[in-house]
């Protein structure tokens, strides 16, 4: 991976974080391609097959995977259109979960860039800490990882896929009214 590509991707993700924290959601939406899939699965507590805490009865059906599947419930499963609807909702003056708005800070780290399946796409891994403070003393820490697919459209990097894996089982926040 060329050094300038790495730098470009890093700057792209930092700029995205700044747009989110400045609540500049319309410019943030421009960073996504029209065929976007934006997915935040849930996490289960499951014993691995090797666990001695249970004796498995039916090994053929035993499910070890703890991240929810694509046909299961997710915290968010969005297209560009539904993200636009979510942003439009914030502008109604009646989106009570964000009125008054959250103060957020997205810390983006551990950025890795590699070529994706086709040569004109990049697969980008990153970690995030998203601090949310709201009202007088509401505080949430959302910590997790992201996997993005980026491609160039008319000279600009655009995100066509984002998988957000939050490191929580029971969501400890009362709601998810921000973006990652």
């Amino acid at each position, binding site marked *: 991976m060329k050094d300038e590509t790495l730098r470009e991707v890093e700057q792209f993700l930092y700029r995205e974080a700044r747009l989110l924290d400045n609540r500049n959601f319309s410019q943030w939406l421009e960073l996504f391609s029209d065929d976007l899939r934006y997915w*935040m*699965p*849930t996490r*289960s*507590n*499951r*014993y691995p097959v090797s666990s*001695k*805490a*249970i*004796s*498995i*009865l*039916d090994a053929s*059906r*035993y*499910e070890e995977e703890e991240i*929810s*599947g694509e*046909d*299961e*419930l*997710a*915290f*968010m*499963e*969005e297209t560009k259109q*539904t993200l636009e*609807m*979510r942003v*439009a*909702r914030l502008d*109604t*003056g*009646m*989106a*009570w*979960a964000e009125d008054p708005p959250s103060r957020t800070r997205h810390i983006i780290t551990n950025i890795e860039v590699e070529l994706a399946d086709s040569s004109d796409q990049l697969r980008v891994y990153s970690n995030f800490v998203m601090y949310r403070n709201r009202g007088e003393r509401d505080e949430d820490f959302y910590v997790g990882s992201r996997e993005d697919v980026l491609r160039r459209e008319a000279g600009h990097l655009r995100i066509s896929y984002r998988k957000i894996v939050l490191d929580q*089982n*029971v*969501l*400890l*926040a*009362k*709601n*998810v*009214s921000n973006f990652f």
Partner: protein
Amino acid sequence: MVLDVKSLVDAEAGLISRRIFIEEEIYQEELERIFARCWLFLCHESQIPQPGDFITTYMGEDSVLVMRDTAGKIGAFLNVCPHRGNRLCRADNGNASAFICAYHGWAFGNNGDLQAVPNLQDAYYDDLDQSKWGLVQVAQLDTYKGLVFATFDKDAPSLTDYLGEMAWYLDSFFDRREGGVEVVGGVHRWIIPCNWKLPAENFGGDAYHVAWNHLSALTSGFTRAPAARQTPGGGTISPGNGHCILAVGAEDYSAAPVEIIQEYEESIRAETLDRLGPRLEKMTPNVGTVFPHLSFLRGSSRSFRVWHPKGPDKIEVISCQFVDKAAPPEVKEALRITGLRAFGPSGALEQDDMDNWEECTRTNRGAVTRRYALNYQMGLGHDRFDEELGAWSSDFRISDSNPRYFYQQWARLMLADTWAQVSAG
């Protein structure tokens, strides 16, 4: 503690004390008198379809392990090792013939029996009656249309009697077609800093908040308003025992603003009418609560959820989605996606509810605030028993009548020492 319950709930005057939403002493009484006595929802049968399948949940604040034993029978037990009280199973779900406590290694079968105890011969001198030290089982367990319920009270009425007329209303959500419903994989679990009764009464009786609290989701296309009609119909329906249903008009039977779902609803209308009978031509049950804390809806999302209490000012929600088992795969998929975008922690509708329930709870910490009763007077005197609905029904579609019946049942349970006294009311 002897509570002056009558000063807390005055359903006839439509006044409810704020103390019941915040005070620890009242909450502890609720755990005993409501959660340790009522039938509580555990899971849907389709979540544990095969022998050995298990799921963990709560009954009140008690951790509970629900499992299908090797013979295929469903049982529910305290998820607690009887030896030192360690929580036995730490997984959300799975499949097992046995569970082994992580502390000392006591092993329990999927029927709750104590199967093995390390050092039984040398340390216990073979002098431990293992038949007395199995997992503590619920007093009664029963299912209704795939919904698994249990109670810790052997004297509680049967599930059939407990649900009463509510059974038909449950059918209108969970048994509209042959085969009933199945649960979509995965679950939404999250913490809300609010009292458990606020979401229970919201789903059971608050048609009022929809037009204002959720207007932003309506105008941005996440749900739709019932078609404007001269007589929109619908109402708040109380079939007894504190259970509540909110209904929209009979013609508004397909709420999700998605073409494939609306077409599906049209296509099965004749079948559901035939199955559920003429009552469905009077109104469409849309949201509801089985007392005390199982709520469900079938509008922009088909979801059932339990508001598990975690103290007077905190709950953990366990929420699932359901679909008609007989629905085509593309309809199930449309319902899954539409549903999770509307309801759940990020739901365009639900995220605003959480914020309001939190503030409705937190303000009650104020000693002076707590002196002033809450207003549940909307529609007082404007409901009647409707023979065709088999329930008390409000004259107008928006009313506080359901919460008044909900809190009346709450008060009966808090006062009564026996189920006979609860029924006598």
